[in-house]
């Protein structure tokens, strides 16, 4: 990401704020005036990564659009925990559709705004991995190929959490879910299945595709800020751990996300018109095993070095493919 890195103050750019930086140099999240798009009182579990990721992303979008934003939300955890009728935790213009059609609805909203001549209002669509990579995939691909003027943000917690942790197309190999139990010859989710949507989005050659992590606020905010003014279809895929579904401790949500990022298992990069342009360089590399150890969904493979080895290979392949290591 081309963004300003604060050279040195104890924590550089890695913490949310810093008392010694000017207001402009701090993150959106460091400001007491941030939108708090997703407000207190929502019913997400303790330590919810998705609630955090959504506030990070939408607050950044609100800042970038100066509050001129409409968000369309697919069905999923994010919608259910935030908006049980008749109350809502959203403090922005917000529209709920059904599970699979958020990209299409967002395209419609964008078209309506265009017709009304409201060029300054930007449209964001958001959903979980289930609503995005599986159920809403047709609509999303359509949105991409039409190059609709929508920023789609997927919060990926790697399964259908709202309905009781069922496997999705984004569930990683060997993870235990309600539908991929840790039994049989290949316990957990199978190897060789599933899909990595950012790559598919890149194949649509849309103007902007990026991955981000709730553990890297600086990068996430920069990507939203960069994506907002671009005309056409944009896609950001945000990695958000789910303590309930992953069997990790609520206080470890960011640690888990950080381990995924620092092991290379979840690559952080951005692409323009189908071409990789930037990637996050791993700061403190960790072994995949350290990431797995924090989560009960991988408990059954901790004594299986061969399986751990396969996951480590995936991480190593990501490091090579997305160029995740600083050149020495």
């Amino acid at each position, binding site marked *: 990401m081309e963004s300003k890195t604060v050279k*040195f*103050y*104890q*924590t*550089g750019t*890695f*913490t*949310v*704020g*810093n*008392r*010694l930086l000017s207001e402009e140099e*701090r*993150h959106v*999240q*460091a400001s*007491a005036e941030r939108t*708090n798009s*997703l*407000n*207190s*009182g*929502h*019913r*997400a579990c*303790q*330590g*919810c*990564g998705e*609630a*955090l990721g959504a*506030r990070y992303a939408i607050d950044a979008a609100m800042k970038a659009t100066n509050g001129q934003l409409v968000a369309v939300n697919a069905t999923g955890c994010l919608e259910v925990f*935030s908006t049980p*009728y*008749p*109350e*809502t*935790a959203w403090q922005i213009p917000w529209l709920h559709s059904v599970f699979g059609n958020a990209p299409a609805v967002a395209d419609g909203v964008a078209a309506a705004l265009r017709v009304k001549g409201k060029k300054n209002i930007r449209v964001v669509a958001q959903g979980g991995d289930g609503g995005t990579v599986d159920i809403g995939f047709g609509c999303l691909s359509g949105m991409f190929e039409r190059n609709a003027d929508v920023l789609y943000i997927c919060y990926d917690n790697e399964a259908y959490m709202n309905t009781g942790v069922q496997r999705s197309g984004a569930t990683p190999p060997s993870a235990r879910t309600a539908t991929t139990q840790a039994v049989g010859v290949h316990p957990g989710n199978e190897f060789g299945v599933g899909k990595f949507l950012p790559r598919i989005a890149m194949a649509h050659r849309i103007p902007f595709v990026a991955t981000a992590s709730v553990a890297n*606020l600086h990068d996430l905010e920069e990507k939203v800020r960069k994506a907002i003014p671009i005309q056409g279809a944009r896609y950001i895929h945000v990695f958000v751990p789910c*303590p309930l579904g992953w069997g990790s*401790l*609520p*206080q*470890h*949500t*960011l*640690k888990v996300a*950080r381990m995924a990022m620092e092991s290379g298992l979840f690559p952080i990069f951005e692409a323009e018109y189908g071409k990789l342009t930037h990637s996050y360089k791993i*700061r*403190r590399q960790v072994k995949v095993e350290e990431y797995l150890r924090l989560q009960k969904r991988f408990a059954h493979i901790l004594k299986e070095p061969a399986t751990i080895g396969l996951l480590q290979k995936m991480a190593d392949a990501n490091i090579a493919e997305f160029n995740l290591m600083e050149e020495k």
Partner: protein
Amino acid sequence: MKTPPRPFAITLDPGSSMHNLTGSWRTMRPVYSHFLPPCNQACPAGEDIQQWLYWAEEGKYREAWEEISKNNPFPAIVGRVCYHPCEMGCNRNKLDLSVNIHAIERFLGDLAIEKKWSFKAGADSGKHVAIIGGGPSGLTAAYHLRRLGHQVSVYDAGPKAGGMMRFGIPKYRLPREILDAEIERIEKMGVRFEFNRTIDDVDALRKGGADAVFIAIGAHLNRKTEIPAKDACRILGATEFLREMEGAEPPKIGRRVAVYGGGNTAMDAARTAQRLGADEVMVIYRRDREHMKAHDFEAQEALDEGVHIHWLRTIKAITEDSITVEEMKLEGGTLVPTGREETLSADTLIMAIGQNVSSEFLKKLPGVEVRSDGTIGVDAQMQTGAPGVFAGGDMVPAERTVTNAIGHGKKAARYIDAYLQGTPYTHPEKPPLAKFDALNVWYYTDASRSRQEMLDRVRRKTGFEEIVQGLDEETAKFEARRCLSCGNCFECDNCFGVCPDNAVIKLGTGKGYKFNLDYCKGCGLCVEECPCGCIDFVPEVK
């Protein structure tokens, strides 16, 4: 009033999630806390190092200096001569290297001298304290007692104040203008000095109007050892030798100087002799480098300047121009003579095998415990067996360093004040130690330790110019910012940012944060993601 019609199938107005007080889910509660940083714990003068670094990070040097002054009135001196145990404790050692605390302290002390910052005395209490000895301990006590409003008279046997800081530590480690400036600042608080005045009757002082007495006469007597000598070469005591350096004429030494001993005083004496122009300077020490009392860097600096160190040697005999030494060996920690002897050519011998306290005069004071080694017994309040008579510094059993003496002076002042007020002083309870494991070090940027420039080796051998140079402002600030702020908030906004429930309220710069317990679900993310580990996580009680 009529409400506007609702859309089809909508029966309720939109409400806010704020009605849902999710704080009721909580079983654990985050609490902003202060933990004791290991640097503070290790400081013999009891400085709140983390706090003054916090100010220095912001460039608020005046605040930083005033924070140091709460405990220690000598930052420019201590920044040069302290052996900085704080840096041994520093948690940053586990990342790269400790923060260069002493260099920043020196920078602040020098800045204070440059800017002529001064101390203020407290409102007059009407009480009077006599202090015997104007070394670091006595001066520190004088400073703290003046701050508390007591009248202070300092009596010193020497011609000037400073004690071992002036008559023991060579100029190349502590330039005298720095020493003078920091002492003058204390003098200006209204401390009365009487020099060349040896006190041998404490009772008379008390009868003369002193409501309390603090004795800090140090340890100036050279320890002696029996060495067979016929037509012996010139023999000097290390303390006299170093003291004479402050006189009009430098002490007379020969061309080949031997120093007997392996402590810091021995190194100071050897390096001073080197600078006085001796052809050859050697240190003779009965143990090896690993077991010497001097700090390794002092031995290294001496070696760099061309001093020879003969390890594992004891002196058997001396003549006019030679010293016979016997080789020793260490067996399981005990020294064993080997019987092998060698003769070294030398015409001057400086004895640096330790110092004693001239505490003879205290024997007549009832209740005072004078130990066999001359040191004085004091209780936890620095008070001797005689009520109202306190003692500290090198003359009480403890490690003999300037910083330790400063700590004694501060502590004694506190209890003298309590004694004068007739109210007991209770020290606030120390918070638990800030442990490395509580830090989230991922957030800290890599930054290597700033080094201080050293004077060129050739110039070191020939003059008394200060060896170690100071840091400039930019470097000092950078170095201060390497502080991890262990266990104490430095306002990075992480807790405010990482809360998925917006349950952290930002109170504004310098004011920190508070939790909104109506919505805090007790997930603990703020606790885990706090870089400095200042948030405690405690169970909710019904």
